[in-house]
């Protein structure tokens, strides 16, 4: 039983492991609507994990029943298998267990470690920073133009004195609005699974690709939210100027440049996007993208829960 379901899930898993992320990473529409693209990436990640673990489970539990819930119930209540249990059933069951444990475990571990590092950094920074002219921003005495925020229950938004010195008030407001957007929309939570799964699955190129794409999209989204709150006559240009100033000075004065390969090209894309804004996605395209994301989650769920074909 269940062979068609297991095969369908395996095909879906294979599609989500490589071609689908590759296509979405190369597509040009995400920069027209980063939020919708972020939803699509979350759906790809979730559906990918669900379908690969589901395919293994469905195959492994095949001797126990005609649908996954039925088979799982039989196993839990100690019913004997209806068909002979072969070695490959045990292998796939073990693989499903290992993979599920690894994905969930790495996610939890990554979350704990990140939260701990954030708390430590915040505690140390709070000893050194001083109030800044903008509300809820803090000033760190350093010549390099740097701005960042540490998310969490007690977020910390830090501007370096170099940043304050090199930007005018409107540009500084744009920087703060961008960082506030990260905090308000909890962008670190969008990133968390992709950071964790890149670490868990270094052999899967899609994991790294997804991480880079989500990182860039989150920055674009924060730019968009910031633009909506900026009063000046040309907010796009103001924000682009702030980005260029920060990019120009970040390498100097002994400040780590961070992950060059990741952020380098993303900064250029952001500036281009601000100077020459792409037309927003039409409503039908947004709806289609969101519908696809919904279906992507619905299909493996349905395959797992409905009786086997």
């Amino acid at each position, binding site marked *: 039983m269940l062979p068609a379901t297991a095969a369908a899930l395996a095909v879906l898993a294979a599609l989500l492991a490589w071609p689908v992320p590759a296509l979405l990473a190369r597509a040009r529409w995400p920069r027209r609507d980063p939020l919708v693209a972020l939803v699509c990436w979350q759906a790809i990640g979730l559906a990918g994990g669900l379908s690969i673990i589901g395919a293994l489970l469905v195959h492994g539990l095949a001797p126990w029943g005609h649908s996954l819930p039925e088979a799982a119930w039989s196993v839990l209540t100690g019913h004997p298998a209806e068909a002979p249990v072969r070695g490959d059933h045990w292998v796939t069951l073990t693989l499903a267990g290992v993979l599920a444990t690894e994905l969930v475990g790495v996610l939890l571990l990554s979350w704990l470690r990140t939260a701990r590092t954030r708390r430590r*950094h915040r505690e140390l920074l709070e000893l050194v920073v001083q109030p800044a002219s903008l509300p809820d921003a803090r000033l760190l005495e350093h010549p390099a133009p740097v701005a960042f925020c540490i998310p969490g229950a007690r977020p910390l938004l830090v501007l370096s004195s170099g940043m304050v010195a090199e930007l005018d008030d409107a540009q500084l407001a744009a920087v703060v609005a961008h960082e506030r957007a990260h905090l308000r929309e909890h962008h670190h939570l969008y990133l968390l699974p992709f950071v964790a799964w890149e670490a868990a699955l270094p052999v899967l190129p899609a994991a790294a690709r997804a991480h880079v794409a989500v990182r860039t999209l989150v920055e674009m989204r*924060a730019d968009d939210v910031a633009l909506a709150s900026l009063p000046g006559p040309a907010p796009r240009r103001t924000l682009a100027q702030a980005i260029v100033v920060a990019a120009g000075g970040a390498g100097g004065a002994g400040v780590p440049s961070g992950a060059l390969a990741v952020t380098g090209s993303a900064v*250029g894309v952001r500036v281009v996007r601000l100077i020459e804004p792409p037309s927003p996605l039409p409503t039908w395209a947004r709806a289609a993208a969101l519908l696809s994301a919904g279906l992507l989650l619905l299909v493996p769920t349905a395959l797992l829960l409905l009786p086997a074909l």
Partner: protein
Amino acid sequence: MASLGDLERAVMDRLWSAEGPLAAAELRDGLADRGLALTTVHTVLSRLEQKGFVVHDDARPRRFRARGTREDHAAELMHEVLGQAGDRQAVLARFVGGVDPDEARLLRELLAAAGPDDAPR
């Protein structure tokens, strides 16, 4: 009651603005408005020592001073917080990450080519 974090900040501010090393009792007197017990001051100081912000000498009573200036610590922290781990693991969200000098120049040219300030586009 103020949190330990608040007290740590207050003590560091004192030490940074002091002329020389201070004894715990002097710190307590300096922070008289907070009504701290001497043990509390010692607790705060030992936490700050653990964090690498404060060092003490071997005089009796021991006297404490900041290990570096506020700027020294800021530079050190900048390095630690913005290091590879922070960026890659999404510990923080940085406004603009590292860009190599070539790309930075390219971006400046791009912005300049886009027209003068406040030009409607």
